[in-house]
């Protein structure tokens, strides 16, 4: 008989505890495993810190915030399961996720459950073209980034360029946007347009091919790992063509991989954490560095933090009814002082305001804002 006492007691405790404190559940769907695991880890660390600070300051309208985290595994299939789990746990709002295809796999599930979803790194245009009333994103869209890329190439005066993507949802979208904008405005001649295979290592064949074509500049719209490898292997081959990247190459990992070859590499990206001049951003990032002894490796975790901030503001104003929260975000939230600058959403849920800046990697491997 004694043997059954302990499990029985535990069971009772488990069923009783949630009933007591009616706290505010906020869902976080992030890639804790799989290809984008490094972005996911920083996302969770940053949002948890924000939750701790919010709870220390008395929570939202007196109720403690409970962060419910689910791993989307960087794949559409796992994202579907993660979304089902979050909806089952009855979260009114969800922050996430980073990859475009992965967010897309969860949109339908959250829309059906009427949950407000704020994507943090999915820049594919399609996500806000399907009319989901409660879908928002704190990251900009590919077409805006395409426009900025085209303008940058025009400003730097390159006439013959090569465009390289990696066939992923994000990279291909950005490559197409940039190409269409460059051709429409007659900015330059595109002498190479193809995709490399992601998570490879040897890109010597592609670089040799590009060397033969000898473009004035290469626009690479893929992720930072491949960008780093391309730069490193170009240096190895003692052949250099100026390279410009999209916002997914904004990660310190690029400098680690490329080493000295990263010098002179330019990329387009929303403002970096260090360059955010808002006071609350500086304070928060100092707290982040104190707790985790390192800065977030890119802007994406910061945009996840902003998603939390706008949701907290909406819940404080309208309570936890998703319908009211969505309405608040659409109409009442204007120029909200977020970590990544002013935040407001248009009717489709996209973020308003130009966010993109041009960055360059300096000799010491630091990302420097190009005026």
């Amino acid at each position, binding site marked *: 008989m004694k043997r059954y006492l302990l499990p029985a007691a535990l069971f009772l405790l488990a069923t009783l505890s949630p009933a007591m404190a009616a706290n505010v559940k906020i869902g976080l769907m992030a890639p*804790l*495993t799989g290809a984008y*695991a*490094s972005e*996911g*880890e920083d996302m969770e660390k940053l949002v948890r810190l924000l939750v701790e600070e919010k709870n220390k300051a008395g929570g939202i309208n007196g109720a403690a915030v409970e962060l419910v985290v689910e791993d989307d595994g960087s794949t559409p299939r796992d994202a579907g399961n993660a979304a089902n789990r979050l909806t089952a746990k009855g979260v009114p709002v969800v922050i996430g996720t980073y990859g475009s295809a992965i967010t897309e796999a969860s949109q339908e599930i959250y829309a059906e459950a009427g949950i407000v979803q704020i994507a943090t790194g999915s820049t594919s245009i399609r996500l806000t073209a399907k009319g989901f009333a409660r879908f928002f994103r704190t990251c900009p869209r590919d077409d805006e980034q395409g426009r900025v890329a085209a303008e940058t190439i025009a400003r730097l005066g390159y006439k013959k360029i090569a465009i390289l993507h990696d*066939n992923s949802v994000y990279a291909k979208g950005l490559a197409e946007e940039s190409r269409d904008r460059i051709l429409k405005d007659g900015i330059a001649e595109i002498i190479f347009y*193809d*995709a*490399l*295979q992601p*998570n*490879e*290592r*040897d890109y*010597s*064949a*592609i670089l*040799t*091919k590009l*060397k*033969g074509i000898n473009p004035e500049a290469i626009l690479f719209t893929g992720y930072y*790992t491949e960008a*780093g*490898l391309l730069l*490193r*292997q170009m*240096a*190895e*081959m*003692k052949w250099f063509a100026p390279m410009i990247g999209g916002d997914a190459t904004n990660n310190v*990992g690029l400098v*680690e*991989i490329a*080493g*000295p070859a990263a010098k002179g590499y330019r990329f387009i990206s929303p403002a970096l954490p260090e360059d955010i001049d808002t006071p609350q951003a500086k304070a928060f990032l100092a707290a982040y560095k104190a707790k985790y002894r390192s800065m977030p*490796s890119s802007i994406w975790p910061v945009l996840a933090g902003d998603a939390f901030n706008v949701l907290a503001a909406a819940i404080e104003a309208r309570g936890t009814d998703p319908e009211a929260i969505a309405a608040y975000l659409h109409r009442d939230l204007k120029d909200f002082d977020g970590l990544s600058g002013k935040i407001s959403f248009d009717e489709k849920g996209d973020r308003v305001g130009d966010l993109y800046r041009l960055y360059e990697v300096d000799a010491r491997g630091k990302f420097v804002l190009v005026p």
Partner: protein
Amino acid sequence: MQEFLQQLTNGLAVGGIYALIALGYTMVYGVLKLINFAHGELFALGAYLGFTLLVTLGLSDFMGGVGVVFLLLIFAMGLVAIAGYFLERVAYRPLRQSNRLAAVVSALGASIFFQNAMMLVYGTKALVYPGGILPSVVVSVLGVEIPLIRILIFASSVLLMCLLFWFIHHTRTGAAVRAVSLDQGAARLMGINVNRIISLIFLIGPALGAAAGVMVGLLYGQIRYDMGVGYGLKAFTAAILGGIGNIPGAMAGGILLGVIEALGAAYISIAWKDAIAFFTLILILIFRPTGLLGERVADKV
């Protein structure tokens, strides 16, 4: 013509690494008729151990150049050989008598286990080998510029292969290995301790994989816990291409696969690189059902 030669050398460097890993598959298959699906992960483990030796133990501070590479290879190969030994003892020896597919599934389980163990220990972020271990000098041969590091790596791959070929074909233990691969029962009757030979195979095979791992780390810098899957699949394809179980076959298959990929990327399309490699494999196997150098398997009636 210039670009063709350049692409050829690109292919050779990649092919050297595929060949080195393929040797691990071929040796294990030759003796046990088992596809060691966990071999790709042992390759990745070699890369990670190389990183640990270089960075955490600070090997790179006080020694430079070829001395470091030699030490790295020895340590990484030694440690991964031990991992290979335990892999065989735990996951394969109990299944030696049962049907072959049971061992294949056990290998798949071991591969998933190793991969995730590395993820937990080393984290999900890609780690990068410190630069500057080997001088980044470009040597121009016949007008083709080849980075020195690629030549070094190709040369050491070929060296290790020749060493292995000499060991298998010109030493007593090598003869024992060949005997066991032909017929375990007969070999046992001849007084060969089959278990010891198989353990030896699981020391050498994984060690070669580890060597390739260190080389990939030095050449490309960036290593991830799941890189074993891609390289493992390619090397396994190369081993089959050359005729599984046949050491020169693994060398030929690996180098051929590297060249096919490079030329396919250069002259057909970079997005279809892997598809071209696999398509070529299927074509070759249709006309040579046991690989390029594999023996004709006539079924004795």
